[in-house]
């Protein structure tokens, strides 16, 4: 990592030599990274670079072939309590279409043991500016509204680590603004974010750190302060076209 001022917050998410093979092919190859509380790592890379596989391992959805991932120093894996500190948002809504927005978020809150699930769900929906459609079935919502509900679902338990895989997909301007504001709030409250995106300007706007992944490896990883957007974009394009 280059140009990074010393971090003053604890490491929230750490990967050490994280590797995942599928039938002998290494989708993720020995990735090391550490995201401190209050930081946002924007992860760029072409299709097939291994970004989603890495994110799924960090969420505990995929077991690494080797290496380890920890949240607040506790290894992801058998202990379900660690998973409660992670929220995951993807371009797929991860919602049940037949249930209402409120039911979806409340179901998630209950699974995470949130004390007052109903109020927490209402608050999360309010935060994502979708409270007025809370009692509508998800299938009747537009793609953008579904994504807002999905974000509410992911943050209802106030996670310390939020993993985002192309979260802006399908969001309109208002939805994107609400998501950005929410992510900024989460970052300010000490959550660590990992944002996977193809959109450089979108990613760099939120990021405190930027990394590029290619063929399963982290080929660049630097502090946002050392990144000049136009130069970075040109170098990125050149790198992924090779």
């Amino acid at each position, binding site marked *: 990592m280059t140009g990074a001022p010393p971090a003053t917050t604890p490491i929230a998410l750490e990967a050490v030599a994280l590797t995942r093979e599928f039938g002998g092919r290494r989708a993720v190859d020995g990735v090391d990274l*550490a995201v401190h509380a209050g930081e946002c790592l924007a992860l760029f890379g072409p299709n097939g670079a291994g970004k989603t596989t890495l994110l799924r391992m960090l969420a*505990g959805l995929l077991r690494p072939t080797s290496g380890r991932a920890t949240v607040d*120093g506790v290894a992801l894996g058998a202990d379900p*309590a660690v998973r409660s500190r992670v929220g995951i948002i993807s371009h797929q809504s991860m919602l*049940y279409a*037949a249930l209402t927005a409120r039911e979806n978020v409340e179901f998630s809150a209950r*699974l*995470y043991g949130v004390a007052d699930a109903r109020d927490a769900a209402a608050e999360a929906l309010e935060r994502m500016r979708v409270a007025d459609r809370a009692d509508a079935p998800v299938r009747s919502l537009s793609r953008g509204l579904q994504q807002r509900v999905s974000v509410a679902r992911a943050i209802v338990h106030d996670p310390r680590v939020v993993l985002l895989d192309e979260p802006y997909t399908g969001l309109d301007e208002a939805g994107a603004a609400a998501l950005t504001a929410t992510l900024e709030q989460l970052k300010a409250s000490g959550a660590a974010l990992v944002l996977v995106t193809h959109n450089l300007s979108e990613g760099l706007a939120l990021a405190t750190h930027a990394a590029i992944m290619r063929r399963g490896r982290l080929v660049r990883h630097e502090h946002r302060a050392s990144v000049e957007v136009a130069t970075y974009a040109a170098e990125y394009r050149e790198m992924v076209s090779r």
Partner: protein
Amino acid sequence: MSEESRVAGGGWRVAEARQDLPSGRSHPLPATRYPGIVSSALLIARKDLAIEFRTRSAFFSAVVFALLAVAIFFFAWDPTAVASLDLAPGVLWVIFTFSGLLGLHRSFGVEQADRAVDALLAAPVPREAIFLGKALANLVFVLAVQAIAVPAVALLYNVPVGRAAPALAGIVVLAAIGLVSVGTLFSAMAVNTRLAELLLPMLALPFFVPVVMAASQTTARLLAGRPIADAMPWLRILLAFDLVFGFACMLAFPHTLEE
């Protein structure tokens, strides 16, 4: 390393556990109460049933299938060749098996749409709770279909259920437990494949054979007015199947979810 402890109500608590980080810092896991395995299973079952209640797609399909099958067997039946009491148990359990498969296929289908399964797996819920929740919802589904199918068979084939009704209800429950245990496991295995609709019956039906045999033999004896003691060997098979496959499927289930 986290330290877990049980709390009242079946939940579990992660104590103020600390783990030294490579950086030399440590961060506590807060004392938070998570739903226990039974509470999580009930949440998941309730969610699945709410979805089915809203859509009713699988339930209507299974009921229509069951009623059509009863009618088709009836029209193909030659009462002068086979007595109704000999035919009815077989018809009942064939319908039970295939209508049950319709519900089992839906069980993980609802999770695949929009990858809701990822949110479920990312939650701090033991995988066994997911199995139990799914199996419980499937059990309710199968029993609801049977609540319509059994009277339909009894009416059409003029079977005197009468005093055998409570015992027959017990057999239906026992058989349903066996069917949903195996079916829930194979439904999870098949759902990610391209030929899920074909694969589920191919995998599950051989395992249903002992259930169907034991259930139909027990039913035949009961409907013939013989004492329940005559059916005990078959009932024991049914009970043993439920216990062995119930636990085995629950233990095997977490492995089916790994990619």
